[in-house]
């Protein structure tokens, strides 16, 4: 068992599923491996993009694939780094069927010293017949500021500054 991955798993799940946009979308990370992540998104009426057919908006699929590829990129890191997305390219093969869950998987296919290359796909019934496919690249930025103590200190400062409304909402 990869020890780093054992620590990453609960951290990633917590960061992606329990806070911010991941929480309101309500997706679930179903598998985390070295350079491989899978997710599940149950259908939600709030995110419909086509009011005539009830199909979810493409933006949801952008969010899902961006998160999934981003998580896969994070699992490759060996030190205190962040991986901002450089670019994301999506091809929509066919519209998603309404009232059905969407499955997403992402895989890192190349990890270089500065850039991580990742591809992902989203499907409903058959992984061989995806609704969308994407490639994403992530920059590796070394930053001591993502260490645990710094994150705690920043949160503490924000509390002192009195930005309580955000804090309350973000932690809910």
């Amino acid at each position, binding site marked *: 068992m990869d020890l780093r991955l054992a620590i990453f798993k609960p951290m990633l799940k917590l*960061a992606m599923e329990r*806070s*911010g*946009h*991941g*929480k*309101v979308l309500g997706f679930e990370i179903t598998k985390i491996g070295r350079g491989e992540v899978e997710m599940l998104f149950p259908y939600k*009426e*709030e*995110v*419909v*993009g*086509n*009011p*005539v*057919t*009830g199909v*979810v*908006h*493409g*933006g*949801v699929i*952008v*969010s*899902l*694939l*961006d*998160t999934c590829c*981003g998580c896969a990129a994070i699992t490759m890191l060996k030190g205190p780094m962040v991986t*901002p*997305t*450089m*670019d*994301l*390219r*999506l*091809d*929509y093969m066919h*519209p998603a069927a309404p009232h059905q869950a969407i499955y997403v998987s992402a895989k890192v296919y190349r990890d270089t010293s500065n850039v991580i290359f990742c591809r992902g796909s989203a499907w409903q019934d058959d992984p061989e017949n995806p609704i969308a496919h994407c490639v994403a690249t992530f920059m590796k930025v070394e930053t001591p500021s*993502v260490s645990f103590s710094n*994150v705690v200190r*920043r*949160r503490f400062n924000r509390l002192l500054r009195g930005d309580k409304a*955000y804090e309350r*909402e*973000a932690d*809910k």
Partner: protein
Amino acid sequence: MTISEQALKVDLLRAKQESNPQLILDLIPYSSFIGAQAKMDTDQVLYWLDRRPSNIGNPSLPAIHGGVIGGFLELSAAIEILYTLDVNLVPKVVDFSLDYLRPGRYKTTYANCTVLRQGKKLVNVTATAWQDDPQTPIANARCHFLIS
């Protein structure tokens, strides 16, 4: 909850007559989910996304979720087609390419769209997002939509 094609047509016409692109956004549940809004700004449509906690991707910075920026730009591009072109169907997105240029800080994000080419079947739209200054964009998107 869905609406008929006829109802969509009526609402599109009304939005164009009243010069109020927000009426089209109101038809799409995803726009209120992320909090996207639109209005006429001199000669083009200005789209904006107010800051809200449910759009945060990285709580420690905090920064807006990259997927929300992507979704916002894709939504803006589709509205631009419905509002500025003579199209009565929700455009189907074929591909979407997004370059993240700067981090999306936790503040109001604006966007402008330009239709670069309109064919019989295909439309190419580019959308740019910025926060403080239109000259320093945070993301740029290009997308193709099928309109028939």
